């Protein structure tokens, strides 16, 4: 069940009205939201609801033990909790990949073995809910958040349907306190939520979908058939597509949660206006980059042990961040590119200090093109296709795929980054005083326009596969 579908709309209407009708019974309300979340998840594969429950029970149990244990035993328990989460993630997501690599390695040494390859279906959103589980256990260990009062809270924390399949990664310290009592829906939250939903619908169903089907997918499928202009357009188009696709999901998730009374953290902040790679990662998938910082980079030592160690830590973090996105070497290479660029930036800062040696505009252009280079690795299914895309950038020929419409979408998708930084929030303040009928007609009109021009059907969100 995808957000921009009528089926989800009907589901959400039912959840919205039922949840608010239970506003005097927080326990029942949470139970209802949990059951609704499981129903939502079961639309992909009902068997994985069991995995979700298992993961929640595991994290709840470990966190409860940590809270009740003496300090000297907590280290073991947190290690056990993190390892169990990683085991679940590793089995479902990386088992096939590592067995394949091992098999290839053994064959190079002349040991041909039939290793047990399993046809494992990847549960949707597993990377997100296991990361959430890890952050909960570690935060309880660090004393950043108390252990949840009930299993129900942890189950809802990990299963809450707005963020379940593609984030944002909402931490226990953000969400558990909100579960303590029935939330209050304010006009700001409602208006902001509705605007984010409409904005997300526009980005996903029009910009991302049209670019994917009419430009990016055909060109990345066979780059040798296209000229440099089409290939460059496909690369820029993919940069816009992935931003509009993923940020749309986050916007809709934040908006849907807001209508149910819960606040999620911001996940994107105009990433393509970043003038350095470090700044890019403060703006792109913020919930993941801050997760990697707090639960990987800092425990590795962060920047505490000198420049060299901090560069090594950045590289490790970005390589594992790349692998988190998918079990393929292209993702590892993508992580290496981002890590390498950040290491160069660090070395540059260490050598030159904070002196500004290039203008901001040039920094933005360089950063954007490094990111686009990374997107080629990210999108191409093999290194061969990635190299073919790069080679195609020098091939002259007729324009076949790029049209005025697609060019407008690409320019529009990039221009979004130069809107005022809090444009939706500003619009929220302007629209908040409007009478409900005016707002209802405006929202209806916006959805009507989007619906009139969107292509039939909706492709799954890119980040579902992660």
């Amino acid at each position: 069940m995808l957000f921009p579908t009528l089926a989800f709309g009907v589901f959400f209407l039912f959840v919205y009205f039922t949840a608010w009708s239970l506003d005097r019974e927080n326990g029942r309300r949470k139970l209802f939201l949990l059951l609704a979340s499981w129903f939502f998840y079961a639309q992909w594969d009902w068997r994985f609801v069991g995995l979700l429950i298992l993961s929640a029970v595991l994290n709840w149990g470990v966190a409860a033990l940590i809270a009740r244990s003496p300090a000297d035993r907590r280290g073991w328990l947190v290690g056990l909790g993190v390892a169990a989460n990683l085991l679940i993630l590793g089995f479902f997501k990386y088992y096939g990949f590592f067995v394949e690599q091992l098999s290839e390695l053994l064959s190079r040494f002349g040991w041909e073995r039939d290793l047990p390859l399993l046809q494992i279906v990847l549960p949707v959103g597993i990377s997100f809910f296991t990361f959430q589980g890890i952050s909960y256990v570690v935060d309880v260990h660090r004393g950043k958040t108390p252990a949840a009062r009930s299993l129900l809270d942890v189950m809802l924390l990990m299963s809450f349907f707005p963020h379940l399949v593609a984030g944002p990664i909402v931490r226990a310290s953000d969400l558990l306190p909100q579960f303590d009592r029935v939330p209050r829906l304010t006009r700001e939250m409602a208006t902001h939520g509705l605007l984010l939903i409409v904005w997300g619908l526009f980005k996903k169903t029009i910009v991302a979908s049209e670019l994917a089907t009419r430009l990016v997918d055909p060109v990345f499928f066979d780059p040798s058939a296209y000229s440099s202009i089409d290939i460059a357009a496909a690369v820029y188009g993919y940069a816009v597509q992935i931003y509009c696709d993923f940020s749309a999901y986050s916007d809709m998730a934040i908006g849907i949660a807001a209508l149910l009374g819960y606040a999620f953290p911001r996940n994107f902040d105009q990433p393509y206006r970043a003038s350095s790679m470090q700044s890019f990662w403060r703006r792109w998938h913020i919930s993941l980059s801050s997760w990697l910082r707090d639960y990987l980079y800092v425990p590795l030592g962060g920047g505490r042990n000198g420049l060299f160690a901090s560069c090594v830590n950045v590289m490790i973090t970005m390589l594992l961040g790349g692998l988190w996105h998918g079990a393929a070497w292209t993702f590892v290479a993508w992580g290496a590119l981002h890590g390498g660029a950040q290491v160069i930036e660090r070395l540059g800062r260490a050598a030159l200090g904070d002196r500004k040696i290039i203008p901001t505009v040039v920094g933005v252009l360089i950063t954007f093109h490094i990111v686009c280079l990374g997107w080629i690795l990210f999108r191409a299914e093999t290194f061969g296709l990635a190299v073919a895309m790069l080679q195609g950038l020098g091939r002259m020929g007729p324009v076949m795929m790029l049209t005025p419409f697609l060019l407008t979408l690409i320019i529009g998708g990039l221009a979004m980054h130069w809107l005022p930084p809090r444009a939706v929030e500003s619009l929220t303040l302007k629209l908040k005083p409007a009478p409900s009928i005016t707002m209802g007609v405006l929202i209806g009109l916006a959805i009507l326009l989007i619906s009139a021009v969107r292509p039939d059907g909706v492709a799954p969100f890119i980040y579902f596969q992660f």
Partner: protein
Amino acid sequence: MSDPNDDDVHDPHGAPVDPFPTAFPPPPVSLFPPVLGVETEGRRMTSDPIPPSPGDPPSDWDQGADAHDLLPVGDPGPDHALIALGRFAFPPGPPLDDEGLGARDRRWTSRIIVFATLFLLIFNAASIQNWSRQQPPGWGTETVRRLSDVWAEQIAQTGADRPRQMVHDAWRDWRDMRFQGAEPPVN
């Protein structure tokens, strides 16, 4: 006319109260007894709001937000006599507490959702029809498909489907435009 410096003949806003006789106490700003949030001080009405006590929950309410049901705070000036009479006859209830504010905002949001849904049911009937045709066959989807077909047909007779169709046609024309000299795509 009376002396303009005479407090008895001018209300705090400077509006002359003549030709009412000055021998009597001047009328208050409002013709009727005070409503909530307005206190009397001697003979004069003051319209300062009751300051919130420190224990009050913080409110994110924007004073200018609602045209329907919020008491204006501050000095709104003298009311029209009929409005004042209405307030006198039907005094507003006590200020909403946090729960009351929350309930009011939920009602507002729910009304938006209902209005938007009704708007879309009328002007976007084709979407329901398209969606129902994409669903796998079954008793439920078949029922929805038939209902949506009838609904879309009825709506089309009123012409409510035209705006959507016009936008769709214009969009399709723009989408299919090509650069001059561009070759058709390889399929």
